[in-house]
């Protein structure tokens, strides 16, 4: 009984080791994998649009990662691979779309909003400063004020 348990434990131990070995990538693959991950982090998964291609479990993402691996193996440069994706899925596939007339608003929009906000703030502060400035009294008002102050004296 004891021996059997021991054997089973040994078996389980080795089973784990065997599986681990199967999953271990080779050195060359590691290089390819690293580049693949770097590239696919730049790309959007179009199936689940808020995920990157590297993080997505969608089937299309797996296919595209396979395609990227293949292109890396074929000696394609990163730019060629990005161009391949953009040709098929458009600029939307890139998390950092290129600067061009159709994306100017996208890139410049936040700065436009910032400029608008700063402008509104300056306007608001100026108006408040003007409204809070010490009121200038006319001669008549000064006399009335003085009279009121004199009244309250004991």
């Amino acid at each position: 009984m004891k021996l059997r348990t021991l054997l089973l434990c040994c078996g389980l131990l080795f089973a784990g080791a065997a599986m681990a070995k199967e999953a271990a990538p080779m050195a060359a693959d590691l290089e390819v994998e690293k580049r693949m991950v770097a590239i696919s982090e730049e790309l959007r998964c179009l199936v689940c649009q808020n995920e990157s291609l590297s993080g997505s479990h969608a089937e299309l993402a797996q296919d595209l990662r396979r395609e990227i691996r293949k292109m890396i193996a074929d000696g394609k440069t990163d730019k060629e691979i990005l161009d391949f994706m953009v040709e098929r899925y458009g600029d939307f596939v890139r998390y950092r779309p290129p600067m061009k007339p159709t994306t100017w608003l996208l890139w410049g929009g936040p700065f436009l909003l910032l400029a608008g906000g700063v402008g509104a703030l300056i306007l608001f502060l100026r108006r408040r400063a003007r409204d809070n400035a010490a009121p200038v009294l006319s001669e008549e008002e000064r006399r009335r004020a003085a009279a009121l102050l004199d009244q309250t004296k004991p």
Partner: protein
Amino acid sequence: MKRFLIPLGVFIVLVIFLAVGLTLNPRDVPSPLKDKPAPAFTLPQLAAADKSFSPADMKGQVWLFNVWASWCVSCRQEHPLLVSFAKDGKVPVVGLNYKDQGVDAKNWLAKFGDPYLLSAVDADGRVGIDYGVYGVPETYVIDKAGVIRLKHTGPITPESLQKQILPLVAELSK
């Protein structure tokens, strides 16, 4: 009174922006393939594996290229529309059976009707990648010169058929 007008105006503009944003379809990503030649490929046909199909075979006529799969739920939704469209016989519809099992695909067509002139088999989805497919079903309108004139992502609705596809097909067929 005036001091409330400006925030109210800003609020209304914001609401309009959000309302428009909500009605937009996030899947409706402009395809870079529009007005580009349909990518070439040669794939076996679903009904007869010994015969092949390539887009060049359709040169000289306007045709629809519909990406479908038996596992795709939305395909079932648009299918009756395609079947009735194909019955009119105005333009041929070619299918791309995307990442599917041959048996499943054939059963599916037998069950729901076959609107396709033929279906090309894209078992590993490689041709789908060339066509920028990411949400089956997708439909392409391809003109006589073999140029993609429209890419419709997602199921065709009676509305998109009437307003987009049919007028374009009529114009291209002239």
